[in-house]
């Protein structure tokens, strides 16, 4: 690691003021940032640790929605009775991230701010039509992820929470990389108040909605209706783990399994 200064602000305002420095980096759970620093792929002048800001932690109900603080760990979401009873698919997804030690540190805010193409949470944020709440504004989940490791966040903007509306039915299925547990392809399917949503992670540079499947499932919510929907491999990721063609195939398989799991 290159050397850096370390700050642990007690307030969101202090953290935001420091984050306005473009050479600084925000540290949430550190499950991606610290390995990145160790490989000298980043050279921030300062790390701003959000671990000391109490208001960023915790899970609460607001109306029918579940609001999860940005610094809430995956293990806490997976174990939350509130999440489990309101949106069980979200608790399932959190429990599938990484391994237990990673889930004890990694946070929802860190995961979505990083916008790894193979991360799990982006599928839930888009699949449930969630809203990302920052210290400046509210960003619809559909507009949040803008590309490979790119989000709508502005410099100095800090995610404070994510608001998830409940779904009538929802399920997440992923084909995991057996070494990293990242999604080679993960598909989140939900029947929501705003219609059926099918969000795909791992396959492309960023999470995306499979609109053809959404249209078919809106007419009839059963795995058979998407059997013949072909996902194009154009623009999908291709690496040593899976070709674009294989990922395209997996999108169909994972989507059907997710619909089946919805019951």
């Amino acid at each position, binding site marked *: 690691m290159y050397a850096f200064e*370390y700050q642990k602000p007690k307030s969101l305002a202090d953290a935001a003021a420091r984050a306005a420095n473009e050479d600084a980096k925000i540290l949430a759970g*550190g499950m991606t940032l610290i390995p990145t620093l160790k490989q000298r792929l980043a050279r921030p002048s300062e790390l701003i640790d959000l671990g000391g800001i109490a208001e960023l932690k915790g899970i609460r109900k607001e109306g029918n929605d579940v609001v999860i603080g940005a610094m809430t760990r995956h293990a806490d979401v997976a174990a939350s009775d509130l999440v489990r009873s309101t949106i069980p698919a979200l608790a399932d997804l959190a429990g599938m991230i990484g*391994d*237990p030690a990673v889930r004890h*540190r990694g946070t929802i805010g860190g995961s979505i701010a990083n916008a790894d193409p193979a991360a799990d949470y982006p599928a839930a944020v888009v699949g449930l039509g969630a809203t990302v709440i920052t210290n400046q504004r509210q960003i619809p989940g559909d507009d949040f992820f803008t590309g490979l490791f790119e989000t709508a966040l502005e410099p100095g903007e800090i995610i404070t929470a994510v608001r998830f509306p409940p779904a009538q039915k929802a399920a997440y299925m992923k084909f995991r990389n057996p*070494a*990293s547990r990242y999604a080679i392809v993960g598909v989140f399917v939900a029947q929501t108040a705003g219609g059926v949503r099918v969000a795909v992670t791992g396959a492309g540079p960023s999470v995306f909605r499979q609109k053809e499947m959404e249209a078919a499932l809106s007419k009839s919510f059963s795995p058979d209706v998407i059997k013949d929907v072909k996902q194009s491999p154009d623009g999908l990721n291709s690496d040593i783990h899976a070709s674009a063609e294989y990922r395209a195939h997996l999108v169909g398989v994972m989507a059907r399994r997710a619909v089946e799991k919805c019951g």
Partner: protein
Amino acid sequence: MPTVSMTVNGKKVSGTVEPRTLLVQFLRETLGLTGTHVGCDTSQCGACVVDIDGDSVKSCTILAVQCEGANVTTIEGLANGSELHPMQEAFREHHGLQCGFCTPGMIMSAVDLVKKNPNPTEQEIRHWLEGNLCRCTGYHNIVKAIEAGAKAMGARK
């Protein structure tokens, strides 16, 4: 350089560290607690697992300065004097190791599992160990050891 203070294996400790010092470096190099191993150094193998405030964490992927005020337990903190912790005893009894390099992390993960799930099934044990790799592939006896260790920990209560 910042000073960091924490409780390690029940003792208050502090040291002057660079912000980029990892917890595992602080434990091994500053405190001389070399039972916590660095295996892959890429957050995958789990040889460096320690307990921080009640949860198993990879000490190669957290900065020492992030642990200010924390309560840390390493493999050295499990035994009671010369009496091994029941999970350590179970690993010895069932030969839950081959070369032994992954063993500290395996035991720390296993103790955390049993704390949260006192009667884990074989499947639950294997699932929990996803972040602990044994390069000797000695998993069968590790799983047997954890099953026995869980029973022994239950009996001790």
